[in-house]
Structures are given as C-alpha cells and as structure tokens.
C-alpha cells in the first residue's frame, strides 16, 4: 500500500496499523511521510527565531519525539481516525522550540525599550517570544491551518482583521473592531476587493477538510455524530 499524501486519511490508517497491529512497514512509511515535512518544519523553527543549525537539530528532535511508539499510541488513543500527523509534528516541534527558547532567555536578546529609549526605570518591557503553552499552540495551529487553506497573505490578513468584529454593519460600539471597509483601508485595497476576498476566503474555509479536522481536534466544534466524510 502506498501512502503519498501526508494529510490523507491513510495516515490515520498507518498509525492504526502500527499501534494496533505493530505493523513495522506502516511505521517506516510514517517516518518517510514525516520527513517530507522537514523543509516546512525547519522554516517554522527559523521563523520563531531559531538559528539555522539549531533549527535543523530541533526538527530532528521533534521527529524523534513525534515518532516514538508511545507518542503515536497516545495520539491514536486521543484522536482515533481524526488523528493528524501534521498537527502532531508541529506540536512536538513547538515543544522543542519552547524549551530552546526558555534556555535562551537567560542570554541577552532583543534590546529592551528602556535601553533603546533610556527613559524608564526598571526594564520591564523587553519584547520576547511568547512562552509557548498548549493554548498558544492551539492558536498557532489554528491560524496555520487557515493559512494552509487560503495560501494567501492578503486573505489571511483580511480574515484576521475582519474577525475582530462581528459584522460589517458599520456600527462600531466596541473598540478594536473593524468593518470590511476599514479593513480595506488598512490594507490599501478597494472595499469591493475586500468584500470579494472575504467571501471567497470564508467559503474556502467552510469546505476545507484540514481546517475542519483541526477545529474538531482543538474542541472548537463538536461533530455531534455528523458524518462529514
């Protein structure tokens, strides 16, 4: 049996075959599929500020973590056929980056506002990478899934900015809310363009299996026994 697509439903079958039947061939196939994600994982680590050689090391460590038999068993027991190897790999990598980041925090990093401006007393405002926890992981996975579905920076920004409000009525009773017209102004595109892109982007997301699976996994929606397959 060939499994060429990391995101196909066959991945869950491979994990099941290994966990339940101890199928070594399935395990090897999982390893090969995971390796296909190496460039994206390294790029992700580098995007989080991990220098090049360290990024490769962290990705290797994440592979080891993710492909441990007990780890595969745990995600199979937790998610069953909804298991997503991609999510699993990125979660393990985030854990590795988190540990790496905590260690680095003992060293000098970005300049603090105080040192740059020389106007305040105790240095409390140093920008830093977030301490990654499960909640941050879920949010990161969520937005990554949206980006993977939309494959467009502009659409991602429209979605991000526009969903800080509830509708496009133009009634702004709350702060930090933008209408689609305001979103268009912020991105310097036409209102019509923003409306069209919003419509297309939300339609894509509503029909995206990966996004749907992730929402289920992190508990944002309840399948309720529906069979969406």
């Amino acid at each position, binding site marked *: 049996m060939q499994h060429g697509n990391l995101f196909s439903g066959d991945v869950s079958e491979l994990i099941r075959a290994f966990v339940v039947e101890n199928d070594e061939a399935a395990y090897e196939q999982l390893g090969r599929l995971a390796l296909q994600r190496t460039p994206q994982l390294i790029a992700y680590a580098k995007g*989080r500020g991990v220098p090049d050689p360290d990024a490769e090391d962290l990705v290797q460590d994440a592979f080891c973590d993710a492909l441990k038999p007990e780890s595969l068993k745990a995600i199979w027991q937790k998610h069953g056929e909804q298991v997503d190897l991609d999510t699993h790999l990125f979660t393990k990598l985030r854990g590795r980056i988190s540990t790496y980041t905590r260690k680095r925090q003992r060293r000098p990093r970005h300049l603090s506002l105080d040192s740059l401006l020389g106007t305040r007393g105790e240095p409390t405002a140093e920008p830093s990478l977030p301490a990654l926890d499960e909640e941050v992981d879920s949010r990161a996975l969520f937005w990554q899934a949206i980006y993977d579905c939309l494959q467009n920076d502009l659409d991602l920004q429209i979605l991000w900015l526009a969903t800080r409000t509830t509708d496009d009525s133009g009634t702004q009773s709350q702060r*930090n809310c933008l209408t689609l017209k305001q979103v268009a102004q912020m991105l310097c595109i036409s209102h019509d363009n923003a409306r069209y892109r919003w419509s297309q982007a939300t339609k894509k997301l509503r029909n995206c299996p990966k996004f749907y699976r992730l929402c289920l996994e992190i508990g944002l929606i309840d399948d309720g026994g529906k069979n969406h397959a």
Partner: protein
Amino acid sequence: MRELITHEELMRILAAIQSEQEPSQATLQAAAEDQPEQPLTLKLPEPIDLEILVDPGSSDTILCLTGGEKWRGALVQCQWESTVGATSDKETTGSLHIFLLMPTEASLGRYQCIVTLKQHRLETIPSVARIVPRYSDPKELQSRLQSAVLKPSAKELIGWIDANLRELEGTRHRDRWMALRQELSEGRSL
C-alpha cells in the same frame, strides 16, 4: 456539496479564537489605570507571527512591533479606533492611523520597530496590517498616507517601492506605483 462548517459555525469559531487572544478592554483599562507603566502586549501566532507592544505613558505612547521573516522591510499600517489627546486642555477621542517601515536587518531572526507617538495616549492595542504591494492600490495608499499621524519619509517610501518592484511585475497597478514613486521623488505626494 454540503459544507463541512456552516457560515455561522465559522464565525463563532473565529470569534472564539479572537476573543481568547485579545486582551479584553477591561483588562487594558485596568492595566492603564492601575499600572500606567505596564506595557500591553498582544502576541499573534504564526503565520501572522507578530508581537505588538504598547507602552502607554502619561502623555506619549511607545509602540513596538516585533515580527518574523514576513515582516522584513514591510510597510505597516497601524490603526487605533480610540485615542486621547493627552496634552490638550480638551481631550478628544477618535481614530488615528500611522505607517511604519519595518527594518530589513533582523536581530536573532526577528524584525523590530519602535516608535514614540508624541501627545497621544493610546488606550487599545492597534489593528496592524502589512501592506501587500501586489494587491494594494497606490491611490488608496497615498490617500491614507496623507492623513497618517506618522509615516516614513518620501525617500524611505521610494526605497520600499523599489524593493518591491519585482513583486509588482505584471500587476495592473504597476504603472500607478511608478507614478506614485515619481510624485514622491518630486516631493508632491505627502
């Protein structure tokens, strides 16, 4: 074909995620009132990959943006829906927007820009948008630049346009970008 998620479900999901990561208005106000020196931060995960820090002082406000590779050399618009004129006798509220150019040099893989907004006490985390030249309309940008409280110099904007010329190849707005560049170089646009 039946949709996997209804529009209503999607809106509910997005609202839930957004409300989790946004500091509440009450939190922001409490921070501003109880600990006026305490910066407010919002960390947006990848693929947005941006940290927004607002340090509200008694009269000025310091804004710090720190982002990953996507923010390298980016032209960024920040907007606050509510601001307070801190030094005038009569305080006013209203919308305010600024433009920033992120650096092209990284520090440990992160790109950081810090600005001070004089005489503005900002009460909220701003909305932040990265201008995508391939899709943006130079006329819209020009209009927004003209009303911005803070913006890069004409020379810096010309540099930004030049740095993005390759991305503009084949776009319908390319000629308008070149026209804007010309206006900037002649000192007519801002």
